[in-house]
């Protein structure tokens, strides 16, 4: 099943659970904190395990693709990325680890400053679920082959199938060759 749909389902279930809990009770708050903390710690450990496996494997096979243009950065054309499998995997994992830190900061603000406990409960499953569903974890910890959906560069997941999906990276020979000698390098920002 699409991970984003299951995320939504879990969120709805957790909302119902949180309505049945007394969030004013310090014991329940403590258990919710422990659940959230454990989930985040486990997710972080899973990513670190995958990271150490990537570093140990040290796959320096060259990976070329044309990343889709970033409209937010004012780009009109895709950018050629020439990297190695190792660096690509580490980049993907680092962004996942970064999202854990961002989540922690958000939850810290909501719970410690705004004194909400509900978001903590609702977010106590998704970090570990995201970690287990991460492509790098599937490849490096579960030993799945890097083919099909797990072929690098990974496709951005979309909630409604093809509709609304972000543009994919181009990996065909023609696009790569065109981007490779386009001379887009050395443009100094003002």
């Amino acid at each position, binding site marked *: 099943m699409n991970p984003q749909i299951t995320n939504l389902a879990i969120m709805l279930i957790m909302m119902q659970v949180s309505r049945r809990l007394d969030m004013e009770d310090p014991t329940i708050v403590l258990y919710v904190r422990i659940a959230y903390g454990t989930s985040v710690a486990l997710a972080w450990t899973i990513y670190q395990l995958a990271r150490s496996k990537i570093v140990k494997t040290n796959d320096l096979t060259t990976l070329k693709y044309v990343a889709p243009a970033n409209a937010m950065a004012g780009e009109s054309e895709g950018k050629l990325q020439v990297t190695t499998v190792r*660096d690509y995997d580490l980049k993907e994992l680092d962004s996942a680890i970064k999202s854990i830190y961002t989540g922690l900061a958000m939850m810290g603000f909501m719970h410690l400053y705004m004194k909400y406990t509900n978001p903590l409960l609702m977010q106590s499953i998704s970090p570990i679920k995201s970690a287990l569903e991460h492509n790098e974890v599937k490849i490096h910890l579960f030993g799945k082959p890097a083919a099909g959906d797990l072929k690098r560069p990974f496709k951005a997941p979309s909630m409604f199938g093809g509709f609304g999906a972000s543009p994919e990276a181009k990996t065909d020979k023609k696009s790569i060759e065109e981007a490779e000698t386009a*001379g887009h390098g050395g443009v100094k920002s003002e």
Partner: protein
Amino acid sequence: MSFLEPIVKLSNAVNSINEKYMALTYQEQSDLTIFGRLRYYNWTFEAWALGAVALVYATYLFGTRVNKSRASQLFQALAKGFEDLAFAKIGFSTNTAKNELFVAENNNTWFTSFVTGRACIESITVRAHLLARFNPMSILMEKVLGLFFSSLVADALDEFVEVTIVPNGVYVTSSAADLPKETNASANVVSKFKFISSIVNKGDMTKAREDNYFLSLTHTSESEKLPFEYVFMSESNQLSSIFEHYGGPEFKQLLSRCAHFLSYVAFTDLPEEKPVTDKLWERSQQPRCIIKTKMVTGSVDLASLNELIKAVVNIFDSASQEYAQNPAKAFVTNDMLRKSANLRSQELAKIAKVMKQAERDLLQEKKQDQEREKRRDLRSKMSGEEQDRLEQKMREKRERRQRNRQKVRM
């Protein structure tokens, strides 16, 4: 506001330090001698403030000195290599008899050294960039900011060494030999280095291509001729073999030893920064070899860097000798150079096209501005009735156009 509470508390705490002194009346203060006032006043806050200033100054001294000592280690090691290569002038002249081996700029974050005076090589420029260790807070801020907004952070956190070796095409058979009489000959030899061929570390491929215009014109290819940590980035596959041809198998071993600090070795004549006009294109072409590495420390790595510089100088020596004595034997053939020249003319044509388009846009904009100005002038000279009539006419014209457009669509 609640978020200002800690600041208010701190400010109150600071003020309360001298509550006793401030509570003194004017008469009581006047009765105290200067020494008495100094003793009565609580100097804790001032002591902390002075301590903070001293800490900032100590950090500044420490940071600048660490950078200078690292740079000294680097440039002294390189100077030995330059002496082995028999350069006549190493470093910069000063008012005193002693030469300055390198110059430091921007609070000891940028260092530059220069050597010249040798056959086949016009000059070698070494530039090193080190972290601003004198300001740890800015390093921390940049790192934290870079974690979340990588595009916003400048490259101030990169520590690197860049060695640029420029050939002069003057080949002499021995140190006592006369310089060649033909002045064109050396220019002819230098023109044979107008190509792009480079070896790039796999860990720096995207960044090297993004930062260097000349690398963004090349194909990336893996090869068994290289250690597995590197790829070739060359204009054509034939040109990639220049390293093996002149450097021999030892060059591959040397590259392996340098893998943990070397970013790229590139022969090029095109600039790092993309030229935007044809004049800039003409001005920025210079055949050279660039060696870019991470900051190198430690005697083993410095020795490897020296060997790498010597190997590149040796490539220039061997190639210049071939062009001067036996051009038919030279590795880079006229056919390869013709292909390179083709690429350059195509790139120049691209630049000219962009320039023309920009000029056209500018002209169009100017024309529109003039027309707008003309219309405004005309309207200001008209009476109220005439203005109304003109507006009516314009409105009708707009409506007619809109109707016609709708008809075409239908």
